[in-house]
Structures are given as structure tokens and as C-alpha cells.
């Protein structure tokens, strides 16, 4: 048997016009960001809400769960993006397309990221103003810490949703 006849993965070929491609790295990272922040924020709330309902608010242990949620959301975003990129590269290699060019980022990705930052800029002042108001009301630190974390997570999810929408439906810079 001639080894070159059954070579796997195939040698990259020049893609034909309209040959289906896969999601670029930036769009993959946006999907990962949605899942990472939704799951970790949901887990944080699932841990602390029963405590809030059952314990006096000043005895609610929230710092450690919050640190875990923050750490895991960062780690999950990084590892998720790496694995999503590896998955895309394997898929493209099997199809005989060059992963470097098909997964690369370009000026459109940068423009979409900038567009998403502008659309979700509200998260920063909402966090700052909300935390300030809660501090003025002298509420327990649980409310301040949780408010900052949850609104920041919502902002990160909104950022990713805007980016995916731009990739899917189109975008005018």
C-alpha cells in the first residue's frame, strides 16, 4: 500500500469559493466566555442564595465562593478557548484546510470587539455607581461584593452576545 494514498490528516488544500469554514478563534472565545461566566456566576448564586435565606446576612460566608467563581471563570475562559481552538484546528486539518489561515483574527475581529466594548460600556458605570450607592446605604459587604461580581459577569456575557450577533447577522463598523 502506498502510504501517501491514505494520508491522515490531509495536506491543506486551497479552499474553493464559498467552501464552508469553521468559526474563527474570536467567535469561539465569545461562546466560551458566555458559558464560562454563566456557569460560574450561576454556581456562585446557587451556593450563596441558600445561605442568605437561612443565615443572618452578616454571617453569610461569600468571600471564598466568590474567589472560586472568579478564578474558575478566568481559568475556564482561558482553557475553554484553547480547547475550542484545538478542536477547530483538528476539524479543519481533517477537512484539508489550513487552520492557521482559517482560524486567524483580522481587522474585522478587532472592529467587532471594539463594537461590543462600546455596546456594553454601561456595565462599568453601573458597577461603580451601584457599589457606591450600596456603600452609602451601609449595607452588608455581601451585597456590595456580590453586586459587583454579578453585574461584571452580566457585562462579560453581554459583550460576548454582541460579538456573536455581529458575526452571525453582520456588522457595520
Amino acid at each position: 500500500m502506498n502510504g501517501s494514498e491514505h494520508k491522515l490528516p490531509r495536506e491543506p488544500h486551497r479552499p474553493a469559493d464559498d467552501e464552508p469554514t469553521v468559526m474563527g478563534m474570536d467567535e469561539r472565545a465569545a461562546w466560551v466566555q458566555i458559558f464560562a461566566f454563566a456557569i460560574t456566576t450561576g454556581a456562585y448564586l446557587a451556593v450563596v442564595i441558600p445561605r442568605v435565606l437561612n443565615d443572618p446576612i452578616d454571617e453569610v460566608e461569600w468571600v471564598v465562593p466568590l474567589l472560586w467563581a472568579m478564578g474558575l471563570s478566568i481559568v475556564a475562559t482561558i482553557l475553554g478557548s484553547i480547547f475550542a481552538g484545538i478542536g477547530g484546528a483538528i476539524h479543519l486539518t481533517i477537512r484539508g484546510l489550513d487552520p492557521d489561515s482559517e482560524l486567524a483574527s483580522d481587522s474585522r475581529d478587532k472592529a467587532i470587539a471594539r463594537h461590543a466594548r462600546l455596546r456594553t460600556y454601561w456595565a462599568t458605570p453601573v458597577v461603580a455607581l451601584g457599589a457606591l450607592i450600596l456603600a452609602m446605604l451601609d449595607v452588608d459587604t455581601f451585597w456590595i461584593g456580590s453586586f459587583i461580581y454579578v453585574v461584571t459577569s452580566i457585562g462579560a456575557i453581554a459583550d460576548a452576545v454582541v460579538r456573536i450577533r455581529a458575526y452571525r447577522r453582520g456588522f457595520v463598523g
Partner: protein
Amino acid sequence: MTPKPTRVTNRIRALRTERGDLTQADLAEQLGVTRQTVIAIEQGKYSPSLEMAFQIARVFDVPLDDVFHYGEGDAN
């Protein structure tokens, strides 16, 4: 059908066909962008920057308004 986000239309696909030998991948390489971006521009899902628009016109060696048109459409 999702409305197109721009009123800018283009003749890139037609110009590529006239050239005969220029694929989306070739054009992407010449512009320094990904094939996805060329596909998005051709489908009217992305309006390139003015600089890239001039680069596209230069690839085909035609004036800018032979490539891009601004007309009536579904834009916001």
C-alpha cells in the same frame, strides 16, 4: 430573512468572476484578512474600512465606485 446591516452593496464577486482566477482565499491573502471576512463583505454582512475598500479596488485595478455602491436597502 435577516435584513442586511448596510446599504453598501458591492461587485466583488462579479469582479472576481470577470478576473476568472481570483478566489476568495486569494483575495483574502492579498488584503491581509481571513477568507471569512471576504465572504462577509461579499454577502453584505460587513462593510470594510475605507482603507480596505481602496485596497480591494486596487486589487481589481478599478475605481472605488466600480466596486462599491450606496443604495436603497434594509439598513438601520
